[in-house]
């Protein structure tokens, strides 16, 4: 069969000519960044455990834009300008998110260009003055657990305090190579809690390690943590 090249050339040229129109939308360009804080101090949580949702109304069906709070207590999202509602679902996070009638209250955020904001939350406990240091082949930690929510209805007790060490800066109950748990009942003075855990052998060897204190609150799934500390061995 004889191939008619001029048809192919015509076809290619034609499609190039027709596809010249720009058909892409501009990507979202306004950055929403911020932290979850209690009186200016960020809430430290576990990696990928505390999700948040952003809603935008007025475009038909409503579904959430999902994100998670970083271990350092920050959040960020690229958004279009407009009005959004920020919400953290009940039962998520080591804090009490305001609710009414069993449903989480939302915070209204108006985006017009990039925006940075801190969101004040009410944690059950805060880890105060954490001191994490290496001593010999151990990591020792001392801290004070301050009860923030003290009323009888919402106040909770400490289930356990834990000291975690890991090779990477993701340090938690899931990601660790060594840990020590102290049951809440064994804590005599919440103003001075100390924990010690042995540094396990690391393969391949590395001359640093990351450590973090976590506090599990009875009946609350997500733990509250101290900032991650890098220790040189």
């Amino acid at each position, binding site marked *: 069969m004889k191939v008619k090249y001029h048809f192919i050339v015509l076809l290619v040229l034609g499609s190039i000519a027709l596809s010249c129109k720009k058909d892409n939308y501009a990507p979202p360009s306004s950055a929403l960044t911020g932290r979850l804080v209690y009186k200016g101090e960020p809430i430290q949580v576990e990696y990928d455990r505390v999700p948040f949702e952003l809603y935008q109304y007025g475009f038909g069906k409503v*579904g959430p834009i999902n994100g998670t709070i970083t271990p350092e207590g920050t959040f960020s999202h690229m958004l279009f300008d407009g009005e959004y509602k920020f919400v953290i679902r*009940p039962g998520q996070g080591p804090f009490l998110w305001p609710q009414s009638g069993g449903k989480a209250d939302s915070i209204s955020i108006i985006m017009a260009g990039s925006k940075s904001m801190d969101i004040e939350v009410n944690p059950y406990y805060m880890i105060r003055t954490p001191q994490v240091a290496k001593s010999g082949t151990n990591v020792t930690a001392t801290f004070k657990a301050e009860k923030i929510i003290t009323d009888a209805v919402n106040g909770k007790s400490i289930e356990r305090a834990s000291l975690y060490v890991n090779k990477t800066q993701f340090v938690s109950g899931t990601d660790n190579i060594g840990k020590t748990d102290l049951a809440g009942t064994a804590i005599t003075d919440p103003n001075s809690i100390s924990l010690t855990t042995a540094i396990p052998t690391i393969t391949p060897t590395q001359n640093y390690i990351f450590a973090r204190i976590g506090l599990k609150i009875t009946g609350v799934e997500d733990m509250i943590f101290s900032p991650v500390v890098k220790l040189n061995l």
Partner: protein
Amino acid sequence: MKKILTLVTFSLLLGMAGCKKDSEFLNVQPFAILTSEQSFSDANQAVSIVADLYNRVADMTAFKNSWESFIDPGEAVPSTFGHVTVQRNGWGFGEWGNWDYGYLREINLFIERATAATTLAEADKKRFVAEGRFLRAAHYFEIVKRMGGVPIITKSLLYDYSGDASSLQNPRAKESEVYDFVIKELDEIKGDLPIAPRTKDRATRATALAMISRAALYAGSIAKYGATTPTVALPGGEVGIPASMANSYYQKSLDAAKAIINGSAGSYSLYNKFPTNASQNFTSLFVDNADKPGNPETIWIEDYKIRSGKQHGFTIQNQPIFGAEEVEGGRVNPSLNLVQSFELLDNTFAPLPIKDASGNPIYYNDPMDLFANRDARLHGTVVVPGSIGKNRPVDIFAGYQLANGTVVSGPSLGFIGKLPGSTADVKLVGSDGPLNAIEYSAQSGFYIRKFVDPAVGSGSRGTGSEVPWIRYRYAEVLLNAAEAAFELNLPEAVGYLNQVRKRAGFNTPLTTVTFDRIVNERRVELAFEGHLIFDKKRWRLAHIVWDGSQMTETELTANIGDPRKRNTQPFALWPYKVHDPGSPNHGKWIFKIVKNSIVTGASRFQLGNYYSEINTTILANNPKIVRQPNQ
């Protein structure tokens, strides 16, 4: 003249043919589609419709969902290069979700059309309607297990294209209401279902009773143990059942189970064709294909038949790879966590004796000796090193242990090499493994035996297996009765439990029942039968046993039989041959506990996993649906 006659005849014929009314002419019945009236005109015709509905019953673990559905967390290692089930640190909130209202609509249509059928015999009609309602109850039970309370739709809904869909939007019923609906429906129809112990693949009276027994038990335990997780509840009762309802559910469960046990729904009993060999007996219970209707234990099965178009590949996927009928097999590797949960014959729990008190390895002449004096169900569920797999001995050893403490092994299945100080070629690794991250090898040191068909050809892709998938069996009914009676503080509980244990080879009956015993009994008797996750959920133990923490060997071997014991990672037990010429231990076997290199994650069951997520599309489509808690 002749010509005229032909013409006249022809035009007359033409005129006659053209006389048909236009409406009649255009109204041609399709040849390939039956109207609903036609399809319900004859019982045989209607059977094919109900068969399609049976075919679509939702299961979580089942042959139709492939071998992956048998990898229960902590209970098995998947034999691949790596698999998400042992690498992830938990489950998404959507895991196990089911919102299949399409199937429910078709069941509702079936019930409506069968009810409206005019030419069906009254007895047939009754049975079909009862079967439709049975399948509907089965599906609601399946959904409520996963999602909690859901809208109960009992008739086919039709959209009127008015632009307003609010008549189709129904709110979620309470979780207890859905369980009540399931139990009530089954209670009402059980009389219309035949007493037919030889009918296994269609609903019978015993099937309905067995389902009542399981559903009421689930509801009862959610009511009772839900109190330990107060945050797993919704204020409207869509999730969570009040504790005050627990006892009435337990009573219903016990009554239904007793109705089967006392024979009022036909004669059922524990399978016991090999009374002198309890392991063989437990193996055969699942793979006795010679006389499926004659199996006294099975109550409801999904049946398979080779050379009929409906066979399955479970045996292909799980036959030991050495001597397999296909270059495939050994997928589901039961973990040491499960293997050590099988009790000793004196009714006590003990870790496998691989080390003596001072930590030195114990040497065995025969690897099978390590597993001696244990629950016979161990060998009926798991292929251990040294035993017969699919009709031939398995070859499981990880390498040679030398006197100086080093191990000589190889990189591939059945690797041939030389031992130090020798020029002879020997096999350095078993042809069945175990080898880390090598497909088909017994990565945990064990293969699965349950459901693996011994029939020749069942492991080849061209043939497949006809082992039935058992949804309900008599032993579970006994365990349901034991649990319900235990929760009601009735002394008869121990009797039901001992029946199941006696068949498993225990000659010393238990004298008391504890919650821990029931949990472990269900774990070992019903292993890989799709019960584990739902059992752990209803006892509200899931977030405790799967708490996301990595496990250690010391932790693994401690507190066996404790229902709250952590089970986040599956462990392996690797056998080694000792190479130490001149020593009395030369040629003997030792065992080591290892964590497979592919096991990197630790399962974490969050409170939000107790009820699967209702996705945002459903929530956006129906604003009356409330969200699940903790998500």
